């Protein structure tokens, strides 16, 4: 699951500081605050099949995606029909079946510990919306107790 944000395919070797919030932390804080979601989580079998706009809004907050009021209405009904679809999995008898965690039998491949430099480092920073003196500029991160619930 999400444990932190990592760069798509490259780790920038040195020199720039990436400040990003782990989603898990936001997840944790949101769960503590929202008791109704906690109750549902304790017994998912008793959870109702219908999800209303409030619950969909909470999931949007977990996913850190802002939705407008019109979109929220549409998403609530779409989400319900998607849940109807995915409930069809219950028709199968899965006793004795393991979860397919890996599609291929892959093992960690080791290589020689020879450092390489990525030559196009500056091109990576060209894509940044706001970048100065080796740092990605972002707005305020701390003092966020009021803001993270909006």
């Amino acid at each position, binding site marked *: 699951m999400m444990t932190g*944000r990592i760069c798509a395919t490259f780790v920038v070797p040195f020199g720039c500081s990436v400040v990003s919030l782990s989603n898990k932390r936001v997840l944790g804080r949101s769960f503590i605050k929202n008791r109704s979601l906690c109750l549902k989580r304790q017994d998912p079998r008793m959870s109702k099949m219908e999800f209303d706009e409030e619950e969909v809004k909470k999931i949007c907050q977990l996913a850190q995606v802002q939705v407008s009021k019109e979109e929220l209405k549409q998403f609530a009904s*779409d989400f319900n029909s*998607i849940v109807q679809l995915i409930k*069809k999995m219950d028709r*199968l008898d899965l006793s004795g079946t*393991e979860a397919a965690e890996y599609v291929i039998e892959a093992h960690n491949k080791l290589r020689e510990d020879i450092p390489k430099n990525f030559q196009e480092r500056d091109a990576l920073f060209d894509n940044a919306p706001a970048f100065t003196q080796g740092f990605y500029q972002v*707005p305020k991160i701390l003092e966020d107790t009021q803001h993270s619930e909006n």
Partner: protein
Amino acid sequence: MFWRSSCAFFSCPTCRPTWRRNWKRPKRTTRTRILSQHTVHISTVIKRQLADVDNSSVLAIAENFKRGEWKAVDIVMEYLQRIHEMDKVLSAFLSVDAERALYKAQLLDEKWDKGEHLGPLAAVPVAIKDNLCTKGMVTTAGSKMLETFVPAYDATSVARLEAAGAIILGKTNMDEFGMGSSTELSGFHPSKNPWDPSRVCGGSSGGSAGAVSSGMAPFALGSDTGGSIRQPASFCGISGLKPTYGRVSRFGLIAFSSSLDTVGPMACSVAELATIFQILAGRDPMDPTSWSEAAPYSDILHRKGALDLKDVKLGVVDIFSSSLEENQVNDVMRCFLDSIRVFTKLNAQVVSISLPYLEEALAAYYVIAPSEASSNLARFDGVRFGSRQEASHISELYQKSRGLGMGAEVKRRMITGTFALSSGYYDAYYRKALRVRQCIIGQFEDLFRQVDVILCPTTPCAAFELGERMGGDPVKMYREDVLTIPPSLAGLPALSIPMGFDANQLPLGLQLIGNRQGEDLLFRVGHAFQMATDWHRQRPPIYRQYVQSSVTKSSS
């Protein structure tokens, strides 16, 4: 006449050369000098020759270039002209880089003059789906979130094609981040089907399929997660391959669902797919999920007796008992039964099998894919790349950038995935979906003990109209993938080839599913079918009109 057409060409917004940051302009040649080297006579001759179906295949172009009959610049100019004429109707391309293509073509011409070694795809133009990173070319994955993103490296599959001598024409349209089955869900504009521009071209590799089908590119690269190569190939009447998971490197592919994504070629015939596949496949140290002990690919297409399928057992899916919707077009049944008769004539043994868990596989896919997508798309936060909105706080930055940069379908899938992975629901949904997946894998293992290749239609219907599945229930769109999802879940290779037309003259596709690493047998069976039929040689009306008008223009 040539100058007039070239001026119009360069003032066309689709094909006007784009300027890229940090790209060093070659000092030696300018645009005008490249154009001035060619005469009206040569461009007309190559136009007529390329109009012929046999001459415009990947192999024929490479062959003609190596023999010296055509210059690479002429080939590229002709394809750029086709894009200029046809893309205003079809909108298959998101960006076309004419200057880069012509520059590479000129380099190849110089290499040919000096007698240097040329790759197997030398001078063959290619269209790349926009979720594959191309160094120096804007790569958007069909989303406004990445509208200005320019990668600093090439995807491995792109790098391998470039090393083989292929010339990238441009990036094709796709559903946003690969989520969709019609290319209407692109963040920019929908792409139209070359066979009927009022219909969709399928998705998510719809732009690539449209480009190949209409002749705007001899072949294209696409990506397949749940049918995204096979379904548009079926809708547009071309051949598309989804390789075994791990056989082609995923490095540089903007990830949608990491355990399901594959990169594959799309072309007009299976023989071309086989050539391209040999270049793309192989271990890549940059992709930890690429097969390390890949079975050596044997070029069995040209072996003696390859077209006689007497040692091949084909499993035909009994679609009457499978859980498809009742209003399945009879045309699909008719074409499918005709295809089975063709295989019987080729001496293949045909056995009836059933795939009983289609609905459950669909359900599992629509838990696993959105879950993995919700994780993979967490990187698009507006901090290091992508579009960013003004915000006073970091959470607001994430929420606003993602909310405004991503489309409705992407948000729907992220909501589904976040829900399925959230604490308390993880076992009930995601873990259960993984067990269903294991069930499907086991089912296919049992089937492949009895048969060599499985046959079924690629899609339950032909291309639907633009806007038909939009709005209302999203599950209507999801059901398009019901036949393509099971092999994706099991990581098996699958090939879609044209098998006929429906009552509205729209193409239908036949899907061949092979065992793990069994692409060579798939190519053999598909090639044998295409030698016995000519569905793959049909071209859409828009292409025939282009050929007609360009030939009359040149002779006037």
